[in-house]
């Protein structure tokens, strides 16, 4: 039983009513920025995206060949582990299904890697079947560096730290291992509906 905070009523009617909001989250209208270090500024023309196994590079796109891939518009609610949520965000990106087409592997997990040495781990099934994209536009405009541009992963069904900014590739693995925040006490999987914020939640 939670302790009742004397005199606290809560001002936010929206949070009480909106069924799209996972437990412990509140709504924002702006787009807060969080990251562990300086924002990398890789120009899009120098950006590449790589799929590798633990042994070898399997596929690699230049920014030009990446943009030639079929892309999709995505509308999604995003949930940050620091408790803000933003509903109905719109993105454009290439589905991870498209990127993995024709790649032979028997992987169960992936480590996503980014500029700035950021990594995050996911079960491969959370990246497939229309659940994840490499997004290069937000709200109709090229993705700004502070929000992860030139491109970030978008996995909206998990807490947003899994949607790695400045993404440069996926490493396919036959096991799970913690990425950056997962090594610093954050949950290994990060389902906002089960409020998996921290290790052991």
């Amino acid at each position, binding site marked *: 039983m939670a302790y009742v905070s004397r005199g606290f009523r809560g001002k936010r009617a929206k949070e009480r009513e909106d069924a799209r909001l996972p437990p412990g989250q509140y709504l924002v209208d702006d787009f807060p920025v969080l990251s562990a270090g*300086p924002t990398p500024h890789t120009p899009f023309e120098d950006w590449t995206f790589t799929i590798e196994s633990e042994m070898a590079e399997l596929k690699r796109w230049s920014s030009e060949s990446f943009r030639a891939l079929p892309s999709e518009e995505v509308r999604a609610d995003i949930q940050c582990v620091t*408790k803000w949520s933003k509903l109905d965000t719109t993105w454009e990106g290439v589905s991870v299904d498209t990127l993995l087409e024709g790649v032979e592997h028997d992987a169960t997990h992936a480590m996503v890697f980014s500029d700035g040495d950021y990594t995050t781990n996911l079960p491969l099934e959370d990246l497939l079947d229309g659940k994840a994209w490499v997004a290069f536009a937000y709200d109709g405009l090229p993705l700004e560096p502070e929000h992860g541009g030139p491109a970030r992963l978008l996995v909206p069904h998990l807490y947003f730290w899994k949607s790695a900014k400045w993404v440069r590739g996926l490493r396919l693995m036959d096991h799970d291992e913690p990425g950056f925040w997962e090594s*610093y006490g954050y949950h290994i999987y990060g389902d906002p509906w089960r409020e998996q914020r921290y290790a052991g939640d």
Partner: protein
Amino acid sequence: MARAAVRGRLNWALGEVVELIDETPRVRSIVLDVPAWPGHRAGQHVDVRLTAEDGYQAQRSYSIASAPKDQRLALTVEGLSDGEVSSYLVGELRTGDKLELRGPVGGYFVWEAEMGGPLLLVAGGSGVVPLMSMLRHRDASGGAVGARLVYSSRSWEDVIYRDELERLASATDGPEVVHTLTRSQPSGWTGYARRVDGQMLAETSWPASIMPSAFVCGPTPFVESVAAALVLLGYPATSVKTERFGPTGG
């Protein structure tokens, strides 16, 4: 890179408010007695949960201001006009009330004396809070590591921990504290009176060649510009750790 040990689930703990300190007209420190507190490292934060009588709950994260070995846990909170949690903590909370806490959280934006230095701390507004935990920890552990704090506030009245920073800075082996006041300055002010920029950091930061560790905390535009300026001054990106809060922190 040091990795935190795997640990069990963080549980909600109940702390009792034993002291409230008005730091500035909008900022209050909340000193808590938390019997089940597992301890923390300087720079970490904690989740606070409020529950209304009808069961409605709201959670937010706040940086820890106290040093790891302090007897009591201190949070410092800036009241935001539309912040349902911060306005309660700054305006309604009284001594003797209890707060539900879960933490400590975050293992990257931390400094421990054994990590060495020198330390460059750059704060914008209430971004000084986790950096104050580091300065208090440094002081408690003997102050052997060189430390500089570059701290941007709107006015002298908005400087959080003003007296304690002066006391720390005037001590032998104390940190160097450089203030900049961006909106208004007391008469006779001879210090900086503009936003932190590359020129100011070139004048006040440690040279990159002696491999300082930088911690930058403040609102997003502040952190973006300071971190970028430090990289231009030759700081490797991995030596600049950042923590940000937006206008909506609540």
